[in-house]
């Protein structure tokens, strides 16, 4: 209650009223008659956006751990490629990476007739495998850099203590090093996930029908420009808000266990 009252200061009430007025004005004067027709399509697109986001984050993180580890303690023949990979991914636009994977690889297929008769062809024809691959690599590239710092940041003494107890190297990694590294990156994960969410609309440029592609479809079918874009922005804001909430709960729980 105290918190509630502290938040609703007079100027905030005025701002909220103005905001509500803008929302009402938007609802009344802008065109929303297309909404019912496209609602099923939009839900499908929303589902695909979330699906791609979750899959690429999980896969990307799994890839980021070895990338970070290789850079932090690997021998040079592992550290160097890992470092190069992260630099290239972080140094070039994702849009270009997506196009290179989709159209670049696509232009190679006709040279190799056996690809078309292979078992993988039904998947290679679809656009989503390329989208998932590109976004996974991108997330791994950024997160790999973060993980490098996290691995390097784990206190030496802890590792030495584990070694002194005669813990095998792999157990040491699994029990001491990895959990501590992950705990230290946890606060940044929420932000990284939102960045990844903001990268997902780029897959629409290679014909994956995510929520962004649905809004483009509305634009091209009905010539209504602003309304789908504004709604789209709101949808992304809600998604970002949900992610923030989820991660803050996640983080609280992690900290409680630590204490």
């Amino acid at each position, binding site marked *: 209650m105290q918190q509630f009252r502290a938040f609703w*200061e007079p*100027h*905030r009430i005025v*701002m909220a009223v103005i905001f509500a007025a803008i929302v009402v004005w938007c609802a009344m004067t802008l065109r929303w008659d297309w909404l019912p027709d496209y609602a099923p399509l939009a839900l499908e697109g929303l589902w695909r956006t979330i699906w791609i986001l979750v899959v690429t984050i999980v896969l990307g993180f799994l890839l980021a751990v070895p990338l970070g580890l290789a850079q932090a303690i690997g021998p040079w023949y592992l550290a160097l490629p890992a470092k190069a990979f992260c*630099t*290239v991914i*972080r*140094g*070039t*636009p*994702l*849009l*270009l*990476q997506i*196009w*290179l994977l989709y*159209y*670049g690889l*696509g*232009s*190679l297929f006709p*040279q190799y007739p056996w690809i078309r008769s292979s078992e993988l062809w039904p998947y290679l024809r679809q656009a989503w495998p390329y989208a998932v691959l590109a976004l996974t690599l991108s997330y791994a590239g950024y997160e790999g850099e973060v993980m490098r710092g996290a691995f390097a940041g784990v206190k030496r003494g802890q590792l030495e203590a584990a070694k002194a107890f005669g813990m095998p190297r792999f157990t040491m990694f699994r029990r001491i090093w990895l959990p501590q590294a992950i705990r230290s990156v946890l606060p940044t994960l929420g932000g990284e996930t*939102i960045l990844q*969410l*903001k*990268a*997902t*609309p*780029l897959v629409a*440029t290679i014909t994956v029908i995510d929520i*962004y592609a649905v809004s483009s479809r509305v634009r091209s079918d009905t010539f209504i*420009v*602003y309304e789908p*874009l*504004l709604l*789209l*922005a709101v949808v*992304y*804001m809600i998604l*970002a*808000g949900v992610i923030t909430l989820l991660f803050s709960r996640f983080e609280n729980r992690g900290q409680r266990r630590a204490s």
Partner: protein
Amino acid sequence: MQAFFDMLGLGSSAELLSLSPPGWGGNLLRGLANSLKIALGAFGLGLVIGLFGACGKLYGGKVTRDLLAVYTTVIRAVPELVLILILYYVGTDVINKISEAMGGDRVEINGVAAGIWVLGIVQGAYATEILRGAIQAVPVGQIEAARSFGMPSAMTMRRITIPAMMSFATPGLANLWLIATKDTALLAVVGFSELTLETRQAAGSTRAYFTFFLAAGALYLVVTLLSGLVFARIENWARRGQPSLKGAR
């Protein structure tokens, strides 16, 4: 070696990438120049917005602070691609309407200017947060000392706060600059002839997708690596006079 290049469809890359027609290298470089122009402009605009935004967030009134919080939250939650479309179509429309309402002529918004202002607003939100953090990291005593000598607040900003916060802000700003160069690629979606769109046009016309996308990637990478060097020097310069961190370890 030749066979390997042919396998990737890179057989005639050298001819395709030569700088004068019929090679497309000139087009790519023109695109790169446009990208850099937009990135520089947007970064600069973002810095200006960020400086005002940071001051507003730290020293402004309640309303200013809340409005700025809305600005930075919204911009950082919505994908750049969506923001670019909204700011590009709605923004130019609004500017024209305002100018017409004031009896002026239609404002000529060329591609580069539109790109700069669209990306600049996005950059501004991030710059606000970076600079706010950096200003907060400046020891309060230094600013209080300046005040106690009767230094006007603008001069305090210019002489004390900004130089002192530079070292805290440079890593974040370096990152922001890299984001700016990469975000220019998104302007391809609204039809700016920057590097990514030029690449796509060249690739589409010649069907050598692999060659051109790899070439463009290399150009972006060169920009990134060079920027890294430049920013490392800037950071060194900004840290001059500070005790070395190496000894502290």
